[in-house]
C-alpha cells in the first residue's frame, strides 16, 4: 500500500505550527518530569494525561509522543547522574553511565545517551512504519476467538515474563481484573460489585486506576521510606562527544535498535531484556574491555539506543492489535479509550490522520528531543536538587488534579486514594503494578471477546481455538510459560563474559 503517501500526509499533520508546539511542549514537559527523581515514564504520562483533556485527539497524541520519549531520556539522565536507577529500562544506563559521570565524563555519557535515544528512536520508528500497516492488514480479518487469544497472551506476558515472581504477578493481574469488573456488565447491564452505588455503576475510570497505582502509590511508598539525605547529583556541563568517542559509539548506536525493536514489537516486550542483551553484546564486541565497569561509553550508547527502539516496537502491538505490554503503552491505551478510540487493526483505516500524524510526530519529537536536550542538560541536572517534600507534595497535588478533572467528582478522589493505598501495599510486598493496570484496561475487552466467541460457537470451549491464528497464539503462550528456563540461563551468560 501507499505507506509513504500516508506518512507524508502524517508529516503534513504533525508539522502544522500548533501541532509542532504540542510536540515541543510534550518533549519539554516529558523530559522535565522524567528527570525528577522518583518519576518514571509511566507516571509522567499518567500525571500529564489531564493536560491533554481539552485538546482534540490528534494534538493530544502528538503531545503524548513527545512526553513518552522525553520521559525516557529524562530517566536515563537521572540514573547516569544519581546512580539510583528507577525504572527498569534505565538500570543498564547507570552501570557504565554513572562511573563515567564520576570520572568527569558525565557530559559525554549524556551525549551518548541522547544520541542513542535519537538513533534508536529513528530506526525503531522507521521499522514501525514498515511493519505496522502490514500487521494491521493481516489482523483485519481476525475475529473474537483470536482477540481473546491475544489478550490471554498479553496477560501471560506481563505476569510471567516481565516480573520475577509469577505468583505475585498473577495476584496483581487478578486485582486488576477485579477492579475492571466493577460497574454495569457491558452486554446485559447487570450490576457487578457496585453495592448499589450509582457512581460505581459507571465503573472505575482507568485513568484513576493508573494515576492511583503509579503516582499516589509511589508517593506514599517513598514517603514511608524517605531518605534523610537525598543522593547528590554529579554536576555536568553541556553534553558533547569527541572524535574518539564517536568512533567508538556509532556502531553501538546502530546495533541497539535491532536488539531493542523485536523485543518491543512482540506482545511480550518490555525494555529490560533488550537493554541487558545490548549491554552484553557491546561488552563482548568492545575493543576496550578493561574499561567496562569503570565507564565504557559503548555500554551507555548501545542499551540506550535499544531501549528507545523497543519503545517504538511496543507501539506496533499497541496501535495494530490494541495490546499494551509496557506501563507507558498501557496508559496511552487508556488515553485512547478516553477519546472513544479503540486501537486495533481498524485504527489505520478509521483514523488515518490520527495514526499517521502520531507516527510522523514520533520523528519530529525525536529531532526536537536532540535539539532541545543537548543544550538544556545542565538545567535538567539542576532539577535533581529539588527538595523532596515539594517533589512528592507536587506528585500528590497533580494526581488529585488529574483524577478530579476526569469527571469533577469528589468520589473519584476518594477512589484514587484507596487505589493508591493498594499500590502502596503492592510495593511493600513486591507485587508488580503493571499487571494490575493491564488487567483493568484489557479485562473488560477480554471478557467481551470471550463471550462473543462462545456465543458464536454456542458455548463450546473448542470455539476458542478453532482458527490457525488463535492456535498459533496459544502455542506462543505455552512457549512463554517455558521462558523462565531460558531466562535463567541469560544472567549467567552475562556474568561469565
Amino acid at each position, binding site marked *: 500500500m501507499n505507506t509513504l503517501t500516508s506518512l507524508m500526509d502524517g508529516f503534513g499533520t504533525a508539522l502544522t505550527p500548533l501541532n509542532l508546539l504540542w510536540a515541543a511542549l510534550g518533549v519539554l514537559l516529558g523530559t522535565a518530569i522524567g528527570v525528577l527523581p522518583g518519576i518514571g515514564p509511566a507516571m509522567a504520562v499518567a500525571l500529564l494525561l489531564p493536560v491533554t483533556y481539552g485538546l482534540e485527539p490528534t494534538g493530544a497524541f502528538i503531545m503524548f509522543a513527545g512526553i513518552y520519549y522525553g520521559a525516557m531520556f529524562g530517566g536515563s539522565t537521572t540514573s547516569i547522574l544519581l546512580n539510583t536507577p528507577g525504572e527498569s529500562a534505565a538500570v543498564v544506563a547507570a552501570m557504565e553511565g554513572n562511573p563515567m559521570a564520576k570520572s568527569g565524563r558525565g557530559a559525554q555519557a549524556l551525549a551518548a545517551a541522547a544520541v542513542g535515544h535519537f538513533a534508536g528512536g529513528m530506526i525503531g520508528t522507521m521499522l514501525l512504519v514498515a511493519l505496522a500497516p502490514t500487521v494491521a492488514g493481516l489482523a483485519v480479518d481476525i475475529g473474537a476467538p483470536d482477540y481473546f487469544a491475544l489478550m490471554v497472551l498479553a496477560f501471560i506476558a506481563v505476569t510471567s515474563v516481565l516480573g520475577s515472581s509469577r505468583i505475585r504477578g498473577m495476584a496483581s493481574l487478578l486485582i486488576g481484573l477485579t477492579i475492571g469488573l466493577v460497574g454495569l456488565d457491558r452486554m446485559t447491564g447487570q450490576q457487578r460489585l457496585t453495592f448499589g452505588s450509582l457512581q460505581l455503576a459507571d465503573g472505575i475510570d482507568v485513568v484513576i486506576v493508573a494515576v492511583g497505582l503509579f503516582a499516589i502509590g509511589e508517593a506514599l511508598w517513598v*514517603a514511608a521510606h524517605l531518605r534523610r539525605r537525598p543522593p547528590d547529583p554529579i554536576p555536568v556541563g553541556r553534553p558533547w562527544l569527541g572524535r574518539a568517542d564517536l568512533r567508538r559509539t556509532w556502531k553501538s548506536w546502530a546495533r541497539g535498535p535491532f536488539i531493542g525493536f523485536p523485543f518491543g514489537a512482540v506482545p511480550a516486550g518490555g525494555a529490560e531484556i533488550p537493554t541487558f542483551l545490548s549491554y552484553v553484546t557491546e561488552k563482548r564486541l568492545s575493543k576496550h574491555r578493561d574499561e567496562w565497569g569503570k565507564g565504557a561509553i559503548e555500554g551507555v550508547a548501545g542499551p540506550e539506543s535499544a531501549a528507545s527502539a523497543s519503545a517504538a516496537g511496543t507501539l506496533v502491538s499497541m496501535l495494530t492489535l490494541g495490546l499494551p505490554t509496557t506501563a507507558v503503552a498501557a496508559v496511552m491505551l487508556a488515553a485512547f479509550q478516553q477519546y472513544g478510540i479503540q486501537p486495533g487493526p481498524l485504527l489505520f483505516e478509521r483514523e488515518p490522520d490520527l495514526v499517521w500524524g502520531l507516527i510522523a510526530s514520533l520523528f519530529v519529537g525525536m529531532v526536537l528531543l536532540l535539539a532541545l536536550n543537548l543544550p538544556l542538560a545542565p538545567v535538567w541536572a539542576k532539577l535533581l536538587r529539588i527538595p523532596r517534600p515539594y517533589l512528592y507534595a507536587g506528585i500528590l497535588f497533580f494526581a488529585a488534579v488529574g483524577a478530579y478533572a476526569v469527571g469533577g467528582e469528589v468520589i473519584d478522589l476518594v477512589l484514587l486514594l484507596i487505589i493508591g493505598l493498594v499500590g502502596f501495599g503492592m510495593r511493600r510486598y513486591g507485587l508488580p503494578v503493571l499487571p494490575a493496570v493491564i488487567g483493568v484496561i484489557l479485562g473488560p475487552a477480554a471478557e467481551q471477546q470471550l463471550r462473543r466467541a462462545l456465543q458464536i460457537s454456542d458455548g463450546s470451549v473448542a470455539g476458542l481455538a478453532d482458527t490457525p491464528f488463535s492456535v498459533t497464539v496459544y502455542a506462543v503462550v505455552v512457549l512463554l510459560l517455558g521462558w523462565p528456563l531460558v531466562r535463567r540461563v541469560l544472567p549467567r551468560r552475562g556474568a561469565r563474559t
Partner: protein
Amino acid sequence: MTTPTTDPGAAGPGAGAGEPAAGRRSWLREHSELGVCVLLSALGVLLLTDALTMDVDIAQRGPVGPRTVPVVVGGGLLVAAALLAADVLRGGRGRAETGEDVDLSEPADWRTVLLLTGVFLGAAVLIEPLGFPVAGALLFWGAAFALGSRRPDRDPLIAAVVSFVTYAVFDNLLGVPLPGGPLMGVL
C-alpha cells in the same frame, strides 16, 4: 519510579532456624506477607458472593452470562492466595521496591503516610466548598509539611503559587474546568 524485585529464599534462615523464644509475634512479623493472602482471599470471596447472588435469569443472553468471568476471577484469587501462602511459608518473600529516594534500611514511617492520607482526604472534602485553588494549595502545603518541610515563610507561598497557576492554566488555557470556589467569585 521503582523496580519490583523478589527474592525467594532471602529470609530462609530466620524462618526455619528454630528460635522458640522469639515467639509468635516475631513469626507473624516475619510472615506479614500472609496478610496479602488474607486480603486476596477476602477479595475472592467478595467477588464470588457478588457473582453468585446475581439475578441473571432475565438478563442472560448466550451461553456465557455476566456471572462466569467474576466466578473465574474470584476462584483465581483464592488459588493465588493459596499459592502465595505456600510460597511465603516456604520462605519466599516479595521484596519491597527500591527507588531513587527510598531508604529501606529504616522501618516504615507510618506517621507520614497517615498524615498524607488525612491531608488528601481533607482536600477532597474541601474542594467543593472552598474551590480548587484554595483546597489545592492546602493539599500541597499539608503534604509538604507531612513530608518534613518546615518553612512557614516559603511553603504556603509556593503552595499558593502552584495551585493558582495550575488552576489558571487548566481552566483558561487547556479548557479543563475546575471549580473556582467563592474566592474566584470575589476576584
